[in-house]
Structures are given as C-alpha cells and as structure tokens.
C-alpha cells in the first residue's frame, strides 16, 4: 500500500545548465541592456490601452456575448467541480489527479492559456460566478454589490499575499501533494474570497485574487487586449503590457513570483535541502524562512533600484515601484518557463492520464487512462538548457525594453540615462541570479 500513498509532484529536475551557456546568457543580457539603453527610441512608443488594431466588431460582440461568458463560467465550474470531487471523494493515492490538476494544469497551465488568450481566469473563476448569481438574486450589479467600496490603498496587496500563500503551499508545506492539504488551502481560499466579494463586490477579485491577477498580468503579454473604447484589439504585447493598471502592491506581486521561483530553484540543490532538513528549526520553519528571505531580497533589491532611480531623476520615490513593476513581468515569465517547462510537459501528461481513473478502480472516464507518458522531452538536455537560457534572456530583453519606454516617458529628458541605469543593473542582477541558480542549484 505504501507506494500508493501520494508523494510529491515530480521528483525530477532538469540537469544543471552548462557553464558556457550560463556565461553566454549573462553576457547577452548585459549587452542587450546597453543596446536598449543606448540605441532604442527616445520618445515613448507604447500607448497602453489607447492603441491597437481593432478586430472586426463581431469579435468584440462575441467575446462580450452573455452566451460565451456563461459557457466559460460553466466550464470553470466543471473544472473546479471535478478537482473538488477528486480532492474530497477520491482516495489519496499517488494516482489521485488533484495535485497535478492544482499545481500543473491550473497553476502552470494558466501561463500558456493567459499568454495566448489574455485574462482567462477572470472568465472562468467560479468565485466570480457564485457572486454574480448572489448579486442577481438581490438585484444588484456585481461590481457594486458589496457592503462598502474597495479602498484604493489595498491595491494588489491581497493578491501578493495570496500568491505568497500559494507559493508556500507548493514549495514549503508538508505533504502539499496530498488531498487533505490541498483541501485545507482551497477551503480557506474560497472562504477569504467569498468574504471579499460580499464586503467589496466583484471588484475585490480584480486585484485581490492571486490567480486572476497572475492570469491578467501574463495576459498583458498576449497579443490581444481591449482598447479604451471597448473594442477587442491586437497589439504589440509590450504595448499591451504597458497598459497594466498600476496600483500599490503590484511590484510585490511580481517580486513574489520572482522570489518564489528563485527559491524553488534553490531547493533543487541537495546541499541546500540537506541544510534545511537538518535545521534545528525543523524543515517547515526553515523552508518558510527561506522562501520569505528569497522574496524579501528580490523586493529589497527592487525598492533600492527604483529608489535610486527616483533620486537620480527627481521623481517622488513613492511613485517609482508601481511605475516599473510591469517591466518585471517578462522577467518573471522567463524564470517560470525556465524552471517549469519540462515539469509541465511530463506531469501534465501524467495528470491527463490520471483524470480518467480518479478512484484507481480501473475506469477510463475520458479515454486517456491507457496512455503512457511520452518522456522523450528529457532526451534532449542541450535543447532544454538552451530553451531555459533563451527564456531568461528573452524575458530580460523584453523587460529592459518595457522599462526603457516607461523611462523615456516619465523621466526628464536629461535624466533618462541616470534614471535607467539602476533599473538596468537590477534587471541584470535578477537575470544573472536566475542563470546562476540554473547552473549551480
């Protein structure tokens, strides 16, 4: 029986990247930073939500049609309903698909889905659907169906806290792949957000729900967006990203993503794992401390760099973190791709097989139970390493361009370079850290 008891997702990591590749990646990041700084445009080109090439009107009306919105809500309810069923009812064997559904299909799957289609979780989120039905019953509009209005200072902080909690669950919590732990987390999650929507209306979810914010930030790197006149448009993903609505705590959201991914990379090192396993604090406390330290270091570096940039340009330092947080999104995406691509491919397949037989009784609900896992992706370590480094460097370049465009818009003309240098230094530091972790951890 023992081997049937659920154990962690994976147990496999990619080989460390070769030193030459890490050095080449770091050099490329440095060179591109200066290329952007020295040669790129001098007047802002990204106009956020104001621009974009409008798609035919029927696209907008189809996206906004109640029929499609209800189809997506029902799909969301079915997906979450199935996951809840396996988490609550099915036996907690290693073949239970709950962990794979939560950590791989949902969390990692949100990345490609959002990059292709935009903020998909907003359309699927069952909490939103439940609240909509409640609001309908009371005859109020869901946005204003709260008891009080959402205070502006709250910003993205609830989402940052939610992301940190989820990262803790995924990376630190003992037995995080077992159904009781998954149930406990998502029951608490549902409780928090139901209270949130009852008190503040559905606006709470716009900035308070970690997964909606995650999906919306990555969706900003999709080629699709909505223009200020309401039309669905195609636009340069970087111009799309430029339209990210700033708010307090946005930088914290992105720093949690970066810090937790870096921490996950660190835990790939046996030496580090052995250190925290042997810690007198106990593995969970030591892991919690490690995760918080990683996020705090990333945040402190960001606060320092934006503070120096503010000082160099004479802009109020308080306005700086929010002004450049969007530029970290591509860097975070590069980290995520580098760390989770093969895990997504391998564990995604395993989950797709497991969903057909959630009770381990030999049934085949969706016809996938008999499939095998195609593990051939692992047979190309050089390709994997190249994709990892390529993703990190590409994320760096896109982040540098985004920061550059924002700099030339915000900073006084004669201070642009002085303001940009600390930001470039910060991005190079993040990128080199990411490469170093891929090489050494």
């Amino acid at each position, binding site marked *: 029986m023992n081997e049937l008891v659920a154990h962690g997702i994976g147990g496999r990591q990619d080989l460390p990247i070769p030193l030459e590749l890490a050095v080449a990646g770091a050099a490329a990041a440095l060179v591109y930073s200066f290329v*952007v700084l020295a040669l790129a445009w001098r007047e802002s080109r990204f106009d956020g939500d104001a621009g974009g090439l409008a798609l035919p009107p029927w696209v907008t009306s189809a996206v906004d049609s109640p029929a499609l919105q209800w189809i997506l809500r029902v799909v969301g309810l079915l997906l979450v309903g199935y996951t809840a069923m396996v988490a609550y009812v099915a036996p907690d064997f290693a073949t239970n698909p709950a962990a794979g559904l939560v950590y791989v299909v949902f969390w990692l799957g949100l990345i490609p889905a959002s990059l292709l289609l935009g903020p998909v979780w907003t359309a699927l989120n069952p909490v939103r659907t439940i609240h909509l039905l409640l609001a309908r019953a009371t005859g109020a509009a869901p946005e204003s169906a709260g008891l009080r209005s959402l205070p502006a200072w709250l910003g993205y902080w609830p989402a940052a806290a939610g992301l940190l909690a989820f990262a803790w669950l995924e990376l630190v919590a003992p037995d995080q792949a077992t159904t009781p732990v998954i149930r406990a987390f998502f029951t608490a999650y549902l409780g928090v957000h139901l209270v949130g929507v009852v008190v503040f209306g559905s606006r709470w979810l716009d900035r308070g729900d970690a997964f909606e914010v995650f999906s919306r930030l990555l969706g900003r790197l999709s080629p699709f967006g909505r223009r200020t006149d309401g039309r669905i448009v195609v636009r340069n993903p970087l111009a799309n990203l430029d339209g990210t609505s700033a708010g307090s705590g946005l930088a914290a959201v992105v720093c949690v993503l970066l810090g937790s991914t870096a921490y996950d990379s660190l835990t790939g090192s046996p030496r580090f794992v052995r250190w925290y396993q042997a810690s007198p604090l106990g593995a969970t406390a030591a892991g919690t401390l490690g995760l918080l330290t990683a996020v705090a270091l990333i945040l402190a570096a960001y606060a320092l760099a934006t503070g120096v940039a503010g000082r160099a340009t004479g802009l109020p330092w308080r306005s700086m973190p929010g002004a450049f947080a969007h530029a970290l999104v591509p860097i975070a995406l590069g980290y995520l791709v580098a760390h989770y691509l093969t895990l997504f491919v391998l564990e995604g397949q395993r989950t797709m097989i497991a969903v057909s037989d959630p009770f381990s009784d030999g049934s085949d609900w969706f016809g996938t139970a008999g499939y095998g896992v195609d593990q051939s992706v692992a*047979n190309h370590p*050089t*390709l994997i390493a190249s994709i990892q480094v390529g993703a990190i460097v590409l994320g760096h*370049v896109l982040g540098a361009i985004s920061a550059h465009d924002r700099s030339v818009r915000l900073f006084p003309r004669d201070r642009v370079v002085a303001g940009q240098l600390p930001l470039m230094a910060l991005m190079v530091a993040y990128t080199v850290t990411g490469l170093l972790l891929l090489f050494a951890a």
Partner: protein
Amino acid sequence: MRTVRPRRLGVRGPATVLLALTTAFALTACGDGDDTGAGSGTTPGASSTPSTTEPDASDEPSDPATESPSPSPSESATEPEVPKPAKARIRIEAGTVTGAPDRLPVVVGQTVRITITSDVAEELHVHGVEELLALPAGEKQTLEFVVPAEPGPGLYEVELEGSSLLLFQLEVQ
C-alpha cells in the same frame, strides 16, 4: 502632433540575432540528441501504474534480476565500455544522513548500488526509475538496479518515503 523622426536602429536587430542564436542552439541540440524514441510512448515499469487488482509488489524485483547476468547485445554494441557500478553507502540516524553524495552521476546501462542502514523502519524510493526498497529498522539493505533508458537525462530524487528526507539525487546524464 508627433514629429516624424528617422527610425533608429532599435532592438529589432539584436532581437533577431537572439532568436537566430536560440534557434541555432535548438537545432544543434536536436542533432546531438540520440534517438531513443522507439519505445518512448510507453511506460515500462509496473510500479508506475498501481492498481488495486494486482497488489503484489513481490515479483517486481525478479524482472531486473533475470536481465542482469546477460546484458543485451545492443547495449554493449553502442556502449563498449560499461562503467563500473556507481555506489553509495548511506547511514541514517535520528534523521541525519551520513555518507550520501550530493549527486551520483550515472549513465544509462550503469549499475547503481545503494547500501543503506536506517535506525527506523523506512522505505527507500528512487524517483524516475521508480525503485522501492523496504528498510527494516537497523538492518543494512542494498538496492541494486540498472539505470534504464526511459525516464531519460535529469536529476532524480532518492528519498525516504516516510519522512520525505532527501538522501541524494541520481544524476542521469
């Protein structure tokens, strides 16, 4: 009103170079990778598909045992020098691991021999190759297996199932 200015050499050029470089990396990698795609669509181990109908794990170790005396001719043809067995001798006392390497580098076809003594009853689990071994308290046990081709290159955790204690990582090249 925007003034029309000549386009500077923007990031478009370097970005193209980056893409070209990445593609070049990718292509060389594809060329180098040895194709083991023949049986890649299936998982071999019975241990990876647990089912309630055949609960006996007892006949599992007999499979590699029958194979080990005569290595298949195809393997010896492609790999003329079979590396010596990779060994690890580990002792676990009060949750502390001694003698374990950080990573044990191995290649496909190589024998791995893990000799382990645990002060409490545990179960040894090698991820990826899905080898399991019961460890009665205080008894020296040896797990021996040949690194199969299937999970492919990567780092695989070798851990104690009960306490989730990481012993080391098997580094399959």
